C-alpha cells in the first residue's frame, strides 16, 4: 500500500480573541491508497477544518495552518503555492460537501459545472469533454445522463444532486476524495444509496477517501479505519473493528454509548384513556396558478391521516423529507389549517375553530421545534420567553416568574438563565429552553418536531432523557416527529410511518421493528446505517 496523505502535527489557528486559539491541535492522520478513513467527531471538533486544510481551502487569512505539514506524495501542501494548490485541487484531490443544493452553482447547468473541471486541468476538445461528462453521469447511475447534463441543480432531487457532485469530484480520477458530511442532508434511504455509490467508486478507482462525519452509523457502514476527533485533537485512531468494538478513549466510549440502539426499548402498558384522536386529516399545498389561471401544482401533504394518542404515550411519526410528518404536526397545533378531517381533543374538534375559539385550547397542545437557534427570539430574555405564555393566560407577573424558574430547574438549567439572552447558550441548552417554554402552559400534549436532529449525539441523548422524564413526571402525551429510526426506537411507544402524505403503517414500536408490514417500512429499516454495531443491538431483519 502506498501512503497518499500524511498529516503530521497539524495546527490550524483561529482568529485571535476567539474562544480557542486553535481549531485543530497537533492532529496526526494518514491515508493509504484504496482505503476509507472516517474522521468522526461532534461539532467544533475540528474535523471539517482538517479536511479543508488539506485542500488549502481554509477561510484565509483569519484561519490558517500555523504549524505542521500535510504531505501529499512527498510534497508539503501546507507550504505549496496557491497556483500549485489550484493544480492539485480537482485533479489529484477533490472534495464533496454536505449540502448538494448550495454546493452547486444554482444558475449553471450540471454539464457546465463538470465541464469546468476538464477545461481547467486538461486540454481536450469540447466534444470529448462532453462525452466524458456523460460517461461520468452514467457511472454515478443518474437516470437520463443526456438530460441531466443540461439540467440546473434545482431540477434534480437531493440524492441526484449529490450524485452529480460525486461525478464532478471524480471527473479526473483523483487519488484522494475528501467527503465532508456528504450524506448528512439526505434522507436515510438516499443516504444508503449514496454511501454505496461512494464505496463502489472508491473500490473501482482505488481512491483514498477521507470521509468526515458525525454519524457513527455511517462510520460503521463505510470506514476501513476511523479517527476520532475532540476539540481539535485526534483522540483515537484504529481500524473500524478496533475503534467501534473496543473503544479505548473515554470520549469514544461516551459517543458510542450515546448512539441510540435500534432495538426498541421494553414496551410500556398503554393507557385506555385517549387524549387526542385525529381522523382523516387532509392538507394540500398548491403552487402556481394564481389570479389569471394557469395550472396549479398540488401536493398532498396529508392524505386522510388517522391516528389516536393515549394518555402518557409517545407516538412517533417517522418518514423522510416531504412525507408530510411536519405538516401533520403543524395542523394539530393549528399552525397550519387542515382542509378536512377532525382533530378531537377531549371531545372538541379543533380543526374548524376560529382564532378566538381556539385560544382556550391552545395551551393544551404545545410544540417543541427543530432548530434551537432559530426558534427562540434573540432579543428576548430567556425568563420572558418562558413566562410569556402564562402571562398571556392571566397569571400575575410573580406567578409567571415562579413558574419560569421552576421550569428552568426541571429542564436542568440554572436560575441565572432567567436573565440571559438565548445566544448565550449552546444548542442543547437552547433546546432545553424551548422545552421549558412549551411546558409553561401545562399542556396535555407535547408535539416535538425533530427536537434532537440539530444536536450532537451526546447532547441528543441528554435531551431524549429529559423528554422522557418530563413525560412521566407530568403524565404528558407526546407526538414525536423524527426521521431517525434509532431515536424513534428509544423514545416511542408506537410509531406511524408516513410516506407522501399517507400513513402506510402504524403500530407498537417493537412490532414494527421486529415485523414491518409495509414495504416502505422495510426499506427504511434496512437503510439505517450501522446496524448491529451498537449497544446490545441485534441485527434487524431487513
Amino acid at each position: 500500500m502506498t501512503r497518499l496523505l500524511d498529516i503530521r502535527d497539524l495546527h490550524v489557528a483561529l482568529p485571535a480573541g476567539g474562544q480557542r486559539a486553535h481549531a485543530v491541535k497537533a492532529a496526526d492522520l494518514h491515508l493509504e491508497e484504496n482505503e476509507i478513513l472516517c474522521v468522526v467527531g461532534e461539532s467544533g471538533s475540528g474535523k471539517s477544518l482538517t479536511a479543508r486544510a488539506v485542500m488549502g481551502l481554509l477561510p484565509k487569512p483569519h484561519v490558517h495552518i500555523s504549524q505542521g505539514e500535510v504531505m501529499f506524495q512527498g510534497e508539503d501542501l501546507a507550504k505549496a503555492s496557491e497556483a500549485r494548490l489550484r493544480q492539485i485541487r480537482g485533479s489529484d484531490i477533490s472534495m464533496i460537501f454536505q449540502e448538494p443544493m448550495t454546493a452547486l452553482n444554482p444558475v449553471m447547468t450540471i454539464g457546465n459545472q463538470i465541464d469546468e473541471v476538464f477545461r481547467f486541468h486538461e486540454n481536450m476538445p469540447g466534444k470529448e469533454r462532453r462525452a466524458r461528462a456523460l460517461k461520468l453521469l452514467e457511472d454515478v447511475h443518474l437516470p437520463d445522463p443526456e438530460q441531466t447534463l443540461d439540467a440546473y441543480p434545482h431540477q434534480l432531487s437531493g440524492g441526484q444532486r449529490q450524485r452529480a457532485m460525486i461525478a464532478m469530484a471524480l471527473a479526473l480520477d483523483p487519488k484522494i476524495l475528501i467527503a465532508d458530511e456528504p450524506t448528512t442532508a439526505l434522507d436515510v434511504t438516499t443516504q444508503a444509496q449514496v454511501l454505496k455509490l461512494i464505496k463502489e467508486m472508491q473500490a473501482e478507482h482505488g481512491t483514498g477517501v477521507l470521509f468526515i462525519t458525525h454519524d457513527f452509523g455511517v462510520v460503521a457502514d463505510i470506514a476501513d479505519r476511523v479517527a476520532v476527533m475532540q476539540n481539535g485533537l485526534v483522540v483515537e485512531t484504529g481500524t473500524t473493528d478496533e475503534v467501534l468494538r473496543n473503544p479505548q478513549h473515554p470520549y469514544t466510549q461516551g459517543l458510542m454509548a450515546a448512539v441510540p440502539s435500534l432495538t426498541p426499548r421494553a414496551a410500556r402498558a398503554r393507557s385506555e384513556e385517549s387524549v387526542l384522536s385525529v381522523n382523516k386529516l387532509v392538507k394540500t399545498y398548491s403552487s402556481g396558478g394564481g389570479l389569471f389561471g394557469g395550472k396549479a401544482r398540488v401536493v398532498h401533504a396529508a392524505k386522510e391521516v388517522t391516528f389516536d394518542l393515549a394518555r402518557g404515550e409517545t407516538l412517533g411519526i417517522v418518514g423522510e423529507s416531504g412525507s408530510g410528518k411536519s405538516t401533520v404536526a403543524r395542523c394539530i397545533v393549528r399552525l397550519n389549517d387542515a382542509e378536512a378531517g377532525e382533530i378531537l381533543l377531549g371531545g372538541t374538534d379543533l380543526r374548524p375553530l376560529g382564532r378566538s375559539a381556539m385560544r382556550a385550547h391552545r395551551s393544551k397542545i404545545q410544540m417543541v421545534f427543530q432548530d434551537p437557534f432559530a426558534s427562540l427570539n434573540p432579543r428576548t430574555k430567556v425568563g420572558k420567553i418562558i413566562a410569556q405564555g402564562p402571562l398571556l393566560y392571566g397569571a400575575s407577573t410573580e406567578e409567571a416568574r415562579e413558574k419560569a424558574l421552576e421550569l428552568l430547574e426541571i429542564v436542568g438549567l440554572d436560575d441565572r438563565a432567567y436573565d440571559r439572552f438565548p445566544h448565550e447558550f449552546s444548542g442543547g441548552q437552547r433546546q432545553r429552553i424551548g422545552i421549558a417554554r412549551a411546558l409553561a402552559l401545562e399542556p396535555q400534549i407535547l408535539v416535538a418536531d425533530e427536537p434532537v436532529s440539530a444536536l450532537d449525539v451526546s447532547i441528543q441523548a441528554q435531551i431524549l432523557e429529559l423528554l422522557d422524564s418530563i413525560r412521566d413526571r407530568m403524565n404528558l402525551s407526546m407526538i414525536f416527529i423524527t426521521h431517525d429510526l434509532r431515536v424513534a426506537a428509544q423514545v416511542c411507544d408506537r410509531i406511524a410511518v408516513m410516506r407522501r402524505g399517507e400513513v402506510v403503517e402504524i403500530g407498537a414500536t417493537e412490532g414494527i421493528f421486529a415485523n414491518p408490514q409495509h414495504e416502505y417500512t422495510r426499506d427504511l429499516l434496512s437503510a439505517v446505517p450501522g446496524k448491529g454495531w451498537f449497544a446490545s443491538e441485534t441485527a434487524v431483519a431487513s
Partner: protein
Amino acid sequence: MSQSSKRIRYVLKRLLQAIPIILAIVVLNFFLLQLAEGDAVDVLAGEAGSATPEYMAELRAKFGLDQPLIVQLGVYLKNVVMLDLGYSFRHEMPVSQLVFDRFIPTLILMSSTIVIAVGFGIILGLIAATGLNTWRDTAISVFALITYATPLFWVGLMLIVVFSLNLGWFPTSGMENFAMFYSGWDRVVDIAHHLVLPTITLSLFYLALYTRLMRASVLEQQGEDYVTTARAKGLTERRIVFVHVLRNALLPVVTMAGVQVGALIGGSVIVESVFAWPGLGMLAFEALFSRDLNLLLGIFLLSASLVVAVNLVVDIIYSLLDPRIEVS
C-alpha cells in the same frame, strides 16, 4: 414547448394583463387630480386678469369642465381607449403630440442614466468587493457615500460651473444646438454632447446606490458554498468571480433597478429644470402649475405604461439570469 415560444406567450399574457392595470391607474389619477383646488380656467382667468364669471362659465362649458365628474371620466376613458389623449388648451396642441415630442428626450436621458448607473455600479461594486478592505474598496466606498449624500440639483449646478462655465467643455443647457441645423450623425454627436452633464448628474445618486448594493451582494455570494466548490475544483479566482459569483450577485441589482425606473422619472424633473432639458419632467412641472389636467393625465398615463413595460423587461432579464425563475 420550447423555451423561446414559452417566453413569447408569457410576454403576450403580461401585455394583456397590463391593460386593466393601466386603466385602473388612469381612473385613480383622474380622481387624484380632482382633489386639488382650481382648474385650468381659474389659471387662465387669473392670468388674463379681467375675466368675468360669465366668461369663465363659457370657458368651462367649452372645455367640458361643467359636466359631472363621472361623465368627464367616462369621456376621458373612452378617448384613451381610442388613443386620443385630449387637447391641451394651455399649449394649444393635442396632448398626444405634446407628450410624444417630450417623451423622446426623457427616454434618452433615462436610458443613458440607467446604463451608466447600473453598469458602473456593477463594476465598482465588484471591484470594491473583490478588493475587500484594500484602498480600492475604501476609495469606492467613500465615493459612494459622498455621491449618495449630495443633493442632485447642487451636483448639477456645480458641474455646470466647472465644466461649462470655467472649462467650456460642455454646453450649459438644452438638448441640441438648433441654430446649427445639424442632421444625421452630426446631430447625434451634438445631442450626446449635451447629454453628458445631465446624465452624470442624474446617475451619480443611483450609481452610489448600485455600487453599495452590488458590493454587498458580491460579498454575500462569496460566502456561499458553491464558491468553495469552485475553489475545490481548482478554478482561478478570476473565473470564480466573473462566472460564478457575478451572475448570482446581479439578481438583487436587477430587481432594484426595475423598481427604480419609476422613481427616475420623478428625479429627472430637477435635472431637467437645471439643464433646461426638454423632457417630460419639465412638461409635468409646467402642467401642474397651469392646472392643465388633460396634459398631466397624459403624462401620467405614459409614465405608467413605461413602468409597466420596464417591469416586464426586468422580469424577462431575471428569467434569463436565473433558471429557477420560470416564465409561465
